């Protein structure tokens, strides 16, 4: 494996080929906030919170998602900049409109100065990070939960036939959810489709 050296926030960081910028930063204990990232899962690139600024070979800095962007030799990464912070602030404002009580979001919101009163509140709780869906598919290989519909109508949904058999004994996705919308969805489907069987 070829060694790579890149600069993150002024600090020289070593990485291996195939590693993402996020991973390289995590290894060097440099914090980049994430919502849809999970170390056991394929990177998703959905929440856009982990965006950082990258400069390579003298080109103008550009925004990339660090959970997907491959670490390369000699690139300069900035995990904070006015641009990065603005994106994170807006993303958090947009998400707080859905999940105003999420502890994780509130903490991040405070850090980036998110003002949730700017966006029209529309609590639906799920922020579509897909952790539950992807964990069930990639780690558990059960596909008991999936996304339904698209655009603003996109929702998570349990497949009752699978969920009634698999979920009661597993529930490993529950702690992954940053908003607890997942548990609500589960209780809802259990009550409607297989009351009392999910345990």
């Amino acid at each position, binding site marked *: 494996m070829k060694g790579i050296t890149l600069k993150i926030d002024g600090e020289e960081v070593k990485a291996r080929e195939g590693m993402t910028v996020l991973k390289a930063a995590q290894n060097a204990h440099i914090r980049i906030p994430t919502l849809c990232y999970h170390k056991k899962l394929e*990177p*998703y*690139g*959905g*929440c*856009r*919170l982990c*965006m950082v600024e990258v400069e390579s070979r003298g080109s103008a800095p550009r*925004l*990339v*998602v660090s959970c*997907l*962007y*491959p670490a390369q030799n000699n690139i300069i990464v900035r995990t904070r900049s006015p*641009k990065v912070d*603005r*994106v994170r602030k*807006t*993303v958090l404002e*947009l*998400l707080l*409109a*859905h999940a105003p009580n999420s502890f994780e979001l509130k903490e991040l919101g405070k850090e980036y100065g998110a003002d949730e009163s*700017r*966006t*029209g509140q*529309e609590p639906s709780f799920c*922020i*579509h990070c*897909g952790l539950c869906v992807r964990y069930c598919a990639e780690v558990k290989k059960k596909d008991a939960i999936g*996304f339904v*519909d*698209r*655009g*603003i*109508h*996109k929702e998570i949904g349990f497949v009752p036939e699978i969920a009634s058999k698999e979920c009661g004994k597993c529930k490993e996705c529950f702690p992954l959810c940053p908003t607890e919308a997942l548990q609500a969805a589960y209780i809802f489907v259990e009550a409607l489709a297989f009351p009392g069987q999910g345990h």
Partner: protein
Amino acid sequence: MCSHQDLETVRQEILSKRDSKKPCISICTGTGCLASGAGEVMAAFTAEIESQGLKADVDAKGTGCPGFCEKGPIVVIYPEEICYLEVKPEDVAEIVSQTVKENKVIERLLYVDSATGEKAIHESDIPFYKNQERTIIGNNIKIDSKSIDDYIAFGGYTGLAKALLKMTPEEVLDEVKKSNLRGRGGGGFPTGRKWEEARHAAGDIKYVIVNADEGDPGAFMDRAVLEGNPHSVLEGLTIGAYAVGSHEGFLYVRNEYPLAIENVLIAIEKAEEYGLLGKNILGSGFDFSVKVHRGAGAFVCGESSALMTALEGKAGEPRPKYVHTVVKGVWDRPSVLNNVETWANVPPIIEKGSDWFTRYGTEKSKGTKIFSLVGKITNTGLVEVPMGITLNDIIYKIGGGIPDGKKFKAVQTGGPSGGCIPERLLDLQVGFDELTKAGSMMGSGGMIVLDEDTCMVDVARYFLEFLTDESCGKCVPCREGIRQMLKILTKITKGKGKPGDIELLQELAEVASEAALCALGRSAANPFLSTLQYFRDEYEAHINEKRCPALACKELINYYIEPEKCKACTTCARKCPADAIIGGKNLIHMVDQDKCTKCGTCFEVCPDRFAAVTKLSGVPVPANLSEDQRVIVREVREAKAS
């Protein structure tokens, strides 16, 4: 067929069986004309030819779309090329007995120039066609879209034969690079460079793909090409495959295009039968096959990585990868994706050479481009124009201007990701970079003309509403950003906008364009940004004065009857569905604003000679008149009575 000679022999055979003097009736059976009754017209022709015993002497065929959809169904009678518009089944007997048999022109079916009153007999005399350069769709009306023989008779597959038998893949690649052909799907990426990257990418298995997932509102360029001339797309795809080193192709077509799917499946079957697809094409040793994949109705699948994900059988969501799809695309293999029109441009480039292609165009945009010209335009339809033509020429010379004496306001190009171009920029030359510079984009070729009655805030709202449904919903700046933008825009059109809304919209737009995952999200704010750039005053009027300058936003207008103009004809009172007209015999009518649902019926039915109903916006409605003030004294009648 297993050699170039074979192809020529087949072509000569087809041609020798044809008599160029034999009358041939071409009936457009593209989707547009079918919707206006071309199926019945076609059936009537078949029956009429049969009943007049002319089956051996006259040909009749269903063809692809020649573009003039406004005047469909279109019938062209060869060899004279007499063009009849808006043909109905009851005209058919006359056409056969008069035009086909007697060579007489039926005046009432000809094109009439509404400005000059001049009639045009031949297709090429119609101003709509005269100013076009139809290298791609020009043959549509001549070719039976279900017949490979017809395509071959008109020179089809010559380009493929030349590429496979006389050129190396590198030479084909060079020719396409020299032509400067750029992606017609909207991105404008140089096609040759895309092919080259895929050719040099590692891996034995490579794919070439046709993007026929056309989904922009009001756009139907690709549908017309695929329906009307499917072989031209297959030929281009095969040439591309040869240049890239691919042996397997996909045609991703939206399932909402049943006729395109039908015609392309027939075309593939026939091409395989003729040895123009499959193993050892034309004896060249080159193998290539094509599979048709039907889309499941997601606009976002027009985006390249989403389309490729869908091809793999997964939900059509864009993939956020920093490796290009030409290197790692479908199943992580090098994949070249080009849109229908791009592929259809390839055969003539190879056949006639890149110099022929670069005759047209601006410095950086060469060739022709098909646009679907729709909206508030006299000649709705499909137009193919040389790059570099001005918007003015498209809208006025080809499109015939704005109907009903209305004023032009803007032209929306590039679909939901594009933008609006105002009147003062109408001299703009059409080209990829030129349109982008003006804040819009070429896109795949949608061109929606807007007149003075169109509210620009509402236009932005409309496109964002479209995108809230069509976003895949994966990334936050797109899914949530568009949702919030739509909310704010809707409020503004309802008169509930507040200071600061524009700035918030701009901020959301900026984050979407910088941080969204795919091209759809990154360009989603364009309809807002370009309308703001050129029509900021309209946004401000909505927010600050609660006024819609175009008098289009329902919540911001009131219907009002001008007392001095009302003649108490009672028409509006009788037609009002909400019973909101305070009428009465010989009494000036008034709108009861509390009951009015703003349906606009009174405005429409008030006789033009009175034109008493007006729309008010941003001003208070004058108080109702008292009963005495409303009495209309009919002078003439009074005089008679005394």
